[in-house]
């Protein structure tokens, strides 16, 4: 006993740090940061002038979309501006950085080389506002993905004309909201075959009413959301013909609201209808269950999805849904504030949740960080969904006080070890994951079409980062694009299952939402471990129809059209 105590005392006295456990460097890092070398030169501008306006610290999102239908993922990035014109900029606008949002075309196809070209001006999507979030979806089912941009200020719907250009159709479509909007998602909540639009709003902050907030020792700092009031969300029903109707009150989604930052649409209770989960900042989260009659009901409290396992509301920011335990239902992760830890809500298949962050060792791994962008994704193609977390503080970090921008934190890569929980493998990921920046948005997709998932990260007051996955495709994989004919063209909301003999079925869904202010690759990716055998696939379309495809070869991308599969497995 004495020996144990002495040993303990030694550890105590010899000090410690919170640096990650050193991991042996693999021969090749898992991820490589290649933004600059691939032409993705973008620096986010916050326009700060010392007023500590809240939008300056909330960042901006990024989207992965194939706007020109050439088979590779292009990138759309949101940009800020100054909210105090004439004020002395704390961080001058980077030289050579054009104003407004930017669209980068991926030239992988046809050149065979991953390189991006700024096509913003040609495409007509360089909106200059205080950009926040982006949602992608083909709302008019014309085969070309459209863009919805949220701002601190008026929002914008860009219709994709199909010829490399876009048109601002916000007014005609009736989908503006002049308040401070954040994340948004396209979903077919009424199963009528076209995509509706859900838009989150954050706070009733206005620059004229900016409040002075202070840190614990009295220095000026960014306010917490408690300084302002939450603003209700909007649900716009797609009426066809390019018109939407605001059905927020009728659908019941104004019955509960808070400072909304993250949203994900998925079928959480397994009834075949798309539901919504909203992460609120410092207020109870909301689970909008679809009542199949055009209305929603918030069941979060009863479903165990409003609070963490300690019954407390946390500062919900980014959110993602995915079947991390391969039991066929959509689980949730919500990223929170420094010293709160994330919430991981395991779904029992009936839309009832239990926070298992403690059990999965995710609470302690995320405790020191303020998390925003997040995605469940299988980085190593082993068939289990891992996690990437984009981090960065929102108030001055004690250890960085006195530095010019004291909010930097590293991002995290967490590997799903099944029953063993998650482990921090950031140390194996290479220099890309060692960067300490103020990350906000994160979008996920196979950017180089090599069969594994890459990540694009937007940094507040920092450069855009492209983390190229160099290790995942060593294992088997399958990627699927769906083409809806009766359902929405992109089949957003469809569920796909790879049926494996002797192993759990892998369930994934078609989505572009999740994360924070960002939109991801709608193609569905399956990691298949060491098995390269052809696989059978089941598709549950958003309207409820089920179809099967047999013996799909692995290691390749498939495009599947509604109505061309078999009605049953055999």
């Amino acid at each position: 006993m004495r020996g144990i105590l002495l040993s303990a005392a030694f550890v105590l006295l010899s000090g410690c740090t919170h640096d990650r456990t050193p991991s042996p460097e693999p021969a090749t890092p898992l991820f490589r940061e290649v933004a600059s070398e691939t032409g993705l030169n973008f620096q986010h501008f916050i326009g700060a002038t010392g007023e500590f306006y809240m939008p300056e610290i909330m960042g901006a999102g990024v989207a992965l979309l194939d706007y020109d239908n050439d088979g590779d993922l292009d990138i759309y990035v949101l940009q800020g501006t100054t909210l105090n014109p004439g004020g002395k900029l704390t961080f001058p606008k980077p030289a050579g950085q054009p104003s407004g949002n930017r669209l980068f075309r991926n030239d992988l196809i046809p050149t065979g080389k991953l390189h991006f070209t700024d096509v913003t001006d040609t495409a007509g999507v360089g909106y200059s506002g205080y950009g926040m979030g982006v949602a992608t979806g083909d709302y008019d089912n014309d085969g070309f993905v459209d863009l919805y941009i949220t701002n601190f200020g008026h929002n914008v719907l860009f219709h994709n004309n199909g010829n490399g250009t876009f048109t601002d159709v916000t007014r005609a479509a009736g989908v503006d909201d002049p308040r401070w909007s954040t994340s948004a998602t396209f979903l077919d909540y009424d199963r009528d075959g076209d995509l509706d639009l859900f838009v989150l709003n954050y706070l009733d902050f206005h620059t004229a009413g900016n409040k002075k907030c202070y840190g614990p020792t009295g220095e000026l700092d960014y306010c917490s959301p408690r300084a302002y009031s939450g603003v209700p969300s909007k649900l716009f029903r797609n009426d066809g013909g390019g018109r939407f109707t605001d059905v927020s009150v009728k659908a019941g989604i104004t019955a509960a609201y808070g400072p909304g930052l993250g949203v994900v649409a998925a079928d959480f209770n397994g009834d075949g209808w798309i539901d919504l989960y909203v992460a609120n900042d410092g207020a109870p989260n909301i689970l909008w269950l679809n009542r199949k009659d055009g209305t929603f009901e918030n069941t979060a409290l009863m479903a165990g999805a409003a609070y963490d396992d300690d019954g407390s509301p946390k500062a919900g920011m980014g959110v993602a849904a995915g079947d991390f335990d391969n039991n066929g239902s959509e689980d949730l992760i919500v990223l929170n504030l420094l010293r709160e830890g994330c919430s991981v809500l395991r779904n029992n298949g009936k839309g009832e949740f239990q926070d298992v962050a403690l059990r999965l060792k995710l609470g302690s791994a995320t405790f020191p960080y303020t998390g925003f962008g997040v995605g469940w994704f299988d980085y190593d193609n082993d068939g289990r969904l891992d996690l990437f977390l984009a981090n960065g503080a929102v108030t001055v970090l004690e250890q960085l006080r006195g530095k010019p921008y004291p909010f930097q934190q590293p991002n995290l890569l967490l590997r799903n070890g099944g029953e063993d929980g998650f482990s921090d493998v950031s140390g194996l990921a290479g220099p890309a994951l060692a960067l300490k920046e103020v990350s906000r948005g994160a979008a996920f997709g196979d950017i180089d079409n090599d069969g594994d998932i890459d990540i694009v990260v937007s940094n507040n007051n920092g450069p855009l980062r492209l983390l190229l996955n160099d290790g995942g495709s060593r294992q088997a994989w399958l990627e699927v694009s769906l083409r809806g004919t009766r359902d929405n063209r992109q089949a957003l909301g469809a569920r796909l299952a790879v049926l494996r003999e002797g192993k759990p079925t892998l369930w994934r869904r078609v989505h572009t939402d999740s994360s924070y202010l960002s939109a991801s690759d709608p193609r569905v990716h399956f990691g298949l471990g060491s098995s390269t055998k052809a696989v059978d696939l089941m598709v549950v379309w958003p309207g409820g129809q089920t179809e099967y495809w047999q013996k799909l070869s692995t290691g390749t991308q498939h495009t599947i059209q509604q109505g061309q599969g078999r009605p049953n497995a055999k």
Partner: protein
Amino acid sequence: MNWSVGKWRAVVSCLAMAVVLATSCTKPQALPDLPSIETATFTPAVRRQVESAVAAVRAKPRDAALNGRLGMTLHANSQFVSAESCYRRAHLLERSSSAWAYYLGVVLSEQGKYQPAVTAFTETLRLRPDYLPAELHLARDLASQGQLPESRKAYERILRNHADDATAYYGLGRVLAASGDTEDAAKSYQRACELFPAYGVAHYALAGLDRSSGKPQEAQKHLVEYQRHMQDVPPFEDPLLSEIRKLRTDPQELLARSIELDQSGKVEQALAANEEALSIDPRLAQAHVNLISLYARLGQPGKAEDHYRAAIAIDPNLADAHYNYGVLLFSQAKRSDAKTAFLRTLEINPNHPGAHNNLGLALEQEGRVAEAIQQYRIAIENRPGYRLAHYHLGRALANLRRYDEAIQEFKSTLTPEDQNTPTYTYALAIAYARSGDSPAANRYFQKAHQEASALGQSNLVASIENALRTMAGSRAR
């Protein structure tokens, strides 16, 4: 940069004080450097406090108590990283003190450094085996870093000596639940609730287990208890942490506390918390904003006005200062001035629901009913479920004989059920009566009567009875 004496004082760098202490009986240990603390941006009160503690350490760098005191000062101001270094030094200089080990554990835990925190709490308990707060911290941090079996043993050890400790039962329940032992977890939570029936989070945890074991009604009962007692936890004495709280000068915490006190109806205590916050940091405009409303409600309009002036002297664009002042003026029947204040509020925050609602009232009193209705609608759009705005909108519509619309608005006021509900139900009944729907009117009059009677609202009961008699008389005629 002008390195004035003040600046030198502001940047407290104690690198020169890094000395090696080679007196350990087991192994020589180096004293960690004192942290470099940039105090230039601190409030004067915090700066004085920290600089005084630093000066004391500089005078006697190997005095454990002074190092520890600096740690406590930093700890009290949420400077956990700096406090950690100071506590380490204090502990190295005075190994026999359980306090330094304990405080070190607490600040490590605050940073999520659970492994070293566990070590620190273990050391605390070696020195002071009976210190329950350290035992609880140890058990909780073992769980936080995933050592569930060890955490379970730690909680069980606590409960052997403190069989009535509800906090330990709750913690044990969490560990058991995380380990998959839901049956024993439920028993543990249940015991916590028996020992402290208002234990909100224990009820929440029980609700989760009841729900997953197919007992939704039980779950619902616990959720009701949770919502009633969200903030309630068992009383807990931690004399060492109390010493830290005494040093706390963070006015933000006082502001947060004032809001909680106000929400729980403790207006005078809320007022005192705001005044105290201002005494620490006179720049706190929000405290003045709060005091406008608090003094107005306590019937001291002069003081309320003083705080309005003080608030806008700090920042003329404080929407809530103008709004609270507008409410004060409205209550004094200074309608024109109140309207000006609400308009000023809306210039700053065009979405302010309260300002829209009250502006609507002011407009209605000027006979500008259509504009008033518009204001009520904007108020509701920005705060769905805003009862008062629904009520005023319903009333304005009823006065225009637009009864169907009015009835919809009044229906929106019926929840939640509280002391105001009978009044709203009564308003709905009147709208039905005026619309000619006597059965519905009668139904809601009866409902309002029951609700008002149950709450002892005798004046309202009398009004309802009068209305019922009038309705009966009309029918008779």
